[in-house]
């Protein structure tokens, strides 16, 4: 067994370093500034560099295959890739190196894009010299690299899902279906979220509540799902595989309100519940944009309504004449991009001083679906659609073609010149003035009886949860994934995943796809006996340790460092020792050790010294 383990990892630190250095052009992102060929020429002359190649995309399949092949054919035992930020592809290349048969920690990542070519565009010679310096530092660091093993920790095979809207319900149902126990926490008293309130959803034209009920049935009937409503996360500690969570409950406003169908699952008296989970899914959703008072007449003109309100009322109206609030309606307008794709200086800023410059994605299709429904049910009504761009993507172009054929009149405005809503004349409630760019910028006045605002989505305000889970937030206030394409549902916090509109505006289909993806990602670490953590924790070299205990005083984490008495040459001696499961890897202990007996694995002082030497010793590349 141990024999087998050895043979699977044949290259060890004892061999003389044979380092492979791979320089990525990033399709010009790097090589338009950094002279990658001149750089490679210099890198080849560095000590112990056995191979150096330049590739257009190092992260592509052929790029990765080159590294694997070189490791095996040229007997490399250390690898450097100089490419984008390590936050994008360090993990990718560690895995590549492992595929080639090396320990994944005999790898160094050099950032020559974000911190070089992109930052020194007008200084190509300086950027090339800097790339060489950074590579030389990485090569120096690798000379002191040791193979490291990831830390294995026991695993709580259970997932916490925060939010009981369709995203939370879907992830809970999927996880339970895979045999993973789920704790579903919902702040309000009922499940289903905003979708449950929608009168009509595209593309199947069914009620939102039908969809919500199906999902609710899947989780409430499932023995592996525990549901807590009127509940919130009060405390979280730990890390992937080992999160400890405290759930607190809001007191019920009055005892007679027992109509709550999903309230079961916890004793009415319980004030809090403690749970241990391995992964956490944040599915807290988004809110419809609430226009400011007076924004396109909202709140001031009763004939200006939001899309969701319109949708709800429309569903209850009898056929025949279109009667709204007791008045016959002949002209209806729909306005796109309310609270979305805002322009600095044109639209007033939000409460935090920023504008919403993102697209809310669902609204174009939702508006045209409503416009079409309206036209089908009340053919006499004139429908006007004020838009910037129509984005009925994802197979929903039909709504546009059909609306168009049904006689919806489109008027296209520019974001810098949004339509102006004024009180109407001659019996109509409103008047919309707009510069229409379908007719070459002609100023048009449209009398309306009703104006529907196609409001976008804004991030749900969850400051406590963001703080508890240390969630990364983007400039648009939505929660941020690691990478929109490569790691679309993971956050920078290992074990914490995103599902649905907490992350970005999405329509129902996209929300459910994202929820399914989050469920799979949450289940992966729980399918194993143990989770693997990065090995970057402190380690004591017992031979060098003199038992002075200064590191113990410096350490802020209970139990991470402790002393033990060992026998050395027949005498007992006190030595410091690290509990890797409790060490956070800050390295505060390293700075106070008089004998350099303690180090952070993967970030040793010798490695930092070598990197400094690498930086100062590299000879500048000449222009």
């Amino acid at each position, binding site marked *: 067994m141990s024999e087998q383990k050895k043979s699977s990892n044949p290259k060890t630190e004892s061999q003389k370093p044979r380092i492979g250095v791979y320089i990525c052009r990033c399709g010009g992102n790097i090589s338009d500034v950094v002279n990658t060929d001149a750089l490679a020429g210099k890198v080849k002359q560095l000590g112990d560099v056995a191979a150096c190649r330049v590739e257009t995309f190092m992260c592509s399949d052929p790029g990765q295959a080159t590294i694997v092949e070189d490791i095996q054919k040229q007997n490399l035992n250390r690898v450097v890739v100089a490419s984008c930020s390590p936050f994008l592809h360090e993990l990718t290349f560690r895995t590549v190196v492992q595929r080639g048969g090396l320990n994944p920690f005999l790898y160094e990542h050099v*950032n020559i894009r974000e911190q070089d070519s992109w930052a020194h565009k007008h200084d190509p010679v300086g950027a090339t010299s800097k790339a060489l310096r950074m590579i030389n530092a990485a090569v120096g660091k690798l000379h002191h690299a040791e193979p490291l093993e990831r830390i294995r920790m026991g695993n709580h095979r259970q997932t916490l899902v925060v939010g009981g809207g369709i995203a939370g319900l879907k992830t809970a149902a999927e996880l339970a279906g895979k045999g993973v126990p789920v704790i579903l926490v919902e702040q309000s008293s009922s499940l289903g979220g905003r979708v449950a309130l929608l009168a009509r959803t595209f593309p199947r034209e069914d009620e939102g509540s039908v969809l919500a009920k199906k999902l609710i049935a899947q989780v409430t009937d499932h023995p592996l799902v525990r549901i807590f409503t009127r509940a919130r996360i009060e405390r979280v500690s730990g890390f992937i595989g080992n999160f400890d969570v405290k759930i607190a409950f809001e007191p019920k406003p009055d005892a007679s309100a027992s109509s709550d169908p999903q309230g079961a699952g916890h004793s009415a008296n319980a004030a809090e519940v403690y749970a241990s989970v391995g992964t956490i899914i944040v599915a807290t959703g988004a809110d419809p944009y609430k226009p400011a008072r007076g924004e396109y007449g909202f709140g001031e003109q009763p004939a200006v309504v939001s899309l969701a309100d319109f949708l709800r009322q429309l569903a209850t109206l009898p056929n025949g004449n279109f009667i709204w609030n007791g008045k016959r309606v002949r002209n209806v307008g729909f306005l796109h991009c309310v609270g979305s794709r805002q322009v600095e200086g044109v639209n007033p800023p939000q409460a935090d001083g920023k504008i919403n410059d993102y697209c809310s994605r669902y609204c174009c299709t939702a508006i045209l679906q409503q416009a079409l429904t309206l036209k089908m049910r009340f053919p006499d009504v004139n429908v006007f659609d004020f838009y910037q761009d129509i984005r009925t993507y994802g197979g929903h172009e039909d709504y546009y073609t059909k609306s168009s054929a049904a006689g919806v009149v489109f008027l296209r405005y520019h974001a810098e010149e949004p339509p102006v809503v004024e009180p109407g004349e001659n019996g109509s409630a409103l008047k919309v003035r707009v510069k229409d760019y379908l007719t070459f910028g002609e100023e048009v006045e449209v009398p309306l009886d009703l104006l529907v605002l196609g409001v976008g989505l804004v991030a749900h305000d969850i400051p406590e949860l963001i703080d508890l889970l240390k969630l990364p937030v983007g400039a648009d206030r939505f929660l941020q994934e690691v990478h929109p394409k490569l790691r679309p549902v993971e956050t920078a916090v290992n074990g914490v995943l995103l599902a649905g509109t907490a992350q970005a505006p999405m329509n129902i289909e996209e929300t459910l796809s994202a929820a399914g993806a989050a469920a799979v990602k949450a289940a992966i670490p729980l399918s194993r006996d143990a989770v693997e953590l990065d090995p970057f924790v402190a380690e004591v070299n017992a031979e060098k340790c003199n038992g002075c205990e200064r590191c113990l005083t410096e350490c802020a984490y209970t139990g991470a460092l402790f002393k033990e008495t060992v026998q050395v040459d027949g005498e007992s001696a006190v030595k410091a020792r690290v509990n890797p499961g409790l060490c956070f890897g800050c390295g505060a202990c390293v700075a106070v050790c008089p004998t350099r007996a303690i180090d952070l694995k993967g970030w040793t002082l010798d490695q930092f010294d070598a990197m400094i030497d690498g930086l100062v010793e590299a000879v500048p590349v000449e222009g």
Partner: protein
Amino acid sequence: MAFEFEPKILVLATLACAYPGADAVGKAHLEYPSNVSILRVPSPALFPEDFFARAYARGIDGILIASCGSDCPYKGAYDKLAARIDRLVQRMKEGGLEIERMRLTAICTVCIKAFLKEVTQMDSRLRELGPVNRSAATEIWQASLRELQAGEIVQMARSAS
């Protein structure tokens, strides 16, 4: 031909804050001098004073510690770091190294302007100061090491008695 002095600037950037902050500068395609080299570090609290002094002795002209400040993800690490830098700066003053060669600051993940300001300021100041006095730095390095190891002697004397 006159040789223009190009200072070697080292930025020690925290993984949680300043390193992604420096990435954000590049993503925004904003520029700063290419003689700035950035090394990432979990927490700069891991460096003993002698590490910095050694870097000067090896020819680094200025060090910018781009920390997380109050957003430090590690308990108490920032205060420990600040105390270490205080002692180092004191030693630099006494040993004849300009203290502007060391700067401790906090850079967040989106602090683009702060990053640019810090590195350009250090660059222009170092161009005025000229190259680091490596022999003065070497003395400080050795003195820092001696003091760190003296702790060991005190400790050994205590355990012997």
